[in-house]
């Protein structure tokens, strides 16, 4: 069972243990990583890595600087980027250009999701899916999303608008096709 760490001033201030925070935001982190990678197994691995990183850095987490969910999403983004960098190096080395997203008829981005929508989400780039999941699925506000992505809120709006427009176009073309 999880222990209630950390102790001390921060714990008194936060009144929440890492285990509680991890439990509460596990789904959000997993969803974020799933949308970024498009691969449920990879998303689980990266989520586990994210929480390991979070545990190591838990003492440095300052709730006054941002919510735990924002912090965890930032860590998850770092883990995902590390994976993508390593994957790009591996692919260049091996000359393979296959996508991480498994070719399957099963919906990847959630059970019960319509195939057209799931397919349209798959067609987006990781950068586009990232802003969609943060703003639409996790319902983060513009400022928090900007903080996670390290960009300005106006840039978040622009990216989201383009991503949703692209998503709609893909869905329409799928329906017509």
């Amino acid at each position, binding site marked *: 069972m999880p222990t209630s760490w950390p102790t001390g001033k921060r714990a008194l201030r936060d009144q929440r243990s890492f285990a509680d925070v991890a439990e509460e935001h596990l*789904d959000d982190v997993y969803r974020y990583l799933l949308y970024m990678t498009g691969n449920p197994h990879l998303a689980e691995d990266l989520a586990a890595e994210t929480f390991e990183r979070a545990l190591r850095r838990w003492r*440095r987490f300052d709730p006054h600087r941002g919510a735990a969910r924002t912090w965890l999403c930032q860590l998850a983004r770092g883990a995902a980027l590390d994976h993508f960098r390593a994957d790009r190096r591996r692919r260049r080395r091996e000359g393979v250009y296959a996508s991480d997203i498994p070719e399957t008829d099963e919906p990847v981005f959630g059970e019960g999701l319509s195939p057209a929508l799931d397919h349209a989400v798959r067609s987006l780039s990781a950068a586009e899916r990232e802003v969609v999941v943060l703003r639409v699925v996790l319902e983060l506000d513009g400022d928090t999303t900007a903080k996670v992505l390290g960009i300005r809120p106006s840039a978040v709006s622009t990216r989201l608008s383009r991503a949703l427009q692209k998503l709609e176009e893909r869905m329409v073309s799928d329906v017509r096709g």
Partner: protein
Amino acid sequence: MSEASYLVELREAAPQASEGLRELIRTMPDDQRHRRVAVRPALVAAAAIALAIALAGAVIGGLTGSGNERHGTVQASRAPDARTLQPPHGASVQPQDTRQFAPSLTARSRLQKQQIAMRLRVDDLSGATQRAVRTTRRLGGFVAGADYATGSDGGNSRLALRVPVANLQKAIASFTNLGTIVSQHISVADLQTGLDRLDVRIAKARKDGKDRTLKRLERRREALIREGTYARVSLQLTTAKPAHQHSAPSRFDRFWDNTGDILGKELIAVLYALFLAGPFVLVAALLILAERTRRRRADHRLLEEAG
């Protein structure tokens, strides 16, 4: 399909983490051993310690400095530029005596023009003046001028004396016994070089048979020798009270003065260090900013490429 409906669908169909992942998170090990020092509190603590050290240094310096008496306290009985020197022969000096003796600047083998100016505070103006005159005459000198004046607030006596240079040290020793030296000034100018040149010119004039020139040069030579034979002594005797002594600052005042001085120096040192380090810090900040921007763009490109 409306925009709202597919967004709602995305939200409602949001995937859940598997039970396996949830269990993995629950069983993560305790990280209590890996305590790390938080950067921000550590920086605050370091700044506080540095400030405390600076203050402590200033206070200790202030306390140490306040214990010493200041030498700048004005003492009317001391000559401003007087030095403690060997007294002339025959002069007796008491340990408590505040009188100062001028350095011996004369060279017996050379002809020199010597001028002495002394100012002494005496109790008995008339008696001191008479003794000075008597001493001068006894030593083979004479009084070239005198100015004696008394009033309700005291009196002054100014004597222009000529004393043979051979007895000058004796004269000075006698004058210093008249009272307390307020100030003294001694100047010595070498006349030997001019005398030597005159001798050369005289010899040449004698050789050439230029009588008028010879007489003129010999008169100049006599005047020069006379100037070097007698020292000019300007003796001023006064009964005026010594100037009001400035009260020495208290130890508390000295403590604050010293502490303020040290703190000021520390502040200057810090500002100097900031001034020196400022450009480097600015360049480093710009480099870090540029690197962050580059990395952010690279990350975005990476995510754009990732399908």
